């Protein structure tokens, strides 16, 4: 019973970590897109 509870806790932890990783990935992607747009507005040519 104890090991089953631990298994479900680990599974929930894994799902949370994955969701956080995905959110972080999306946020950094947007951060870089905004930074790039600002650089282009500042006169730099797109790479």
């Amino acid at each position, binding site marked *: 019973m104890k090991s089953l509870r631990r298994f479900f806790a680990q599974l929930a932890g894994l799902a949370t970590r994955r969701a*956080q*990783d995905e*959110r*972080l*990935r*999306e*946020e*950094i*992607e*947007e*951060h*870089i*897109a*905004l*930074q*790039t*747009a600002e*650089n282009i507005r500042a006169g*730099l040519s797109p*790479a």
Partner: protein
Amino acid sequence: MPLPHAIARSIFTLPQPRRKRASPNTYLLLSQRKYAILLLVSKMATPMKQKTDVLQGTLALMVLKTLEVLGSLHGYGIARRIEQISGDVLAVNQGTLYPVLLKLEQEGAIGSEWGASENNRRARFYRLTRQGRKQLQAETQGWEQTSAIIARFFEVKAEDLS
């Protein structure tokens, strides 16, 4: 642009420390090649002004204060505003900022929801919570006290202590 690409490639192939897991930031750089190249290009393109990294432990306070003054902002907006308020002396990089935002949210000091950025893309917008406001007040008092103590040390002369 062959040069930045070449530089970026060399970053990706740098050996990792033995038996150590890559940090989340390194992981992103290693796995998200196209973003890392963009990141490198944007770093190279910024004016060559010397910027200082945010002092450890102070970024959370800056985030809370920025959100208190300016209301809801996305991560990029927070970073830019902190840099602007510092008179462009500080540099806030995303590798430092987002873990702090996540920590503050887990502590309940800030809340967030998805919205649309200036690019019309999905971005996470952060706002100060009531708990965050209380935390900000407490931390502000702490920093003011620390700052006053340090100021006394800078001003002290031998004759003051005799």
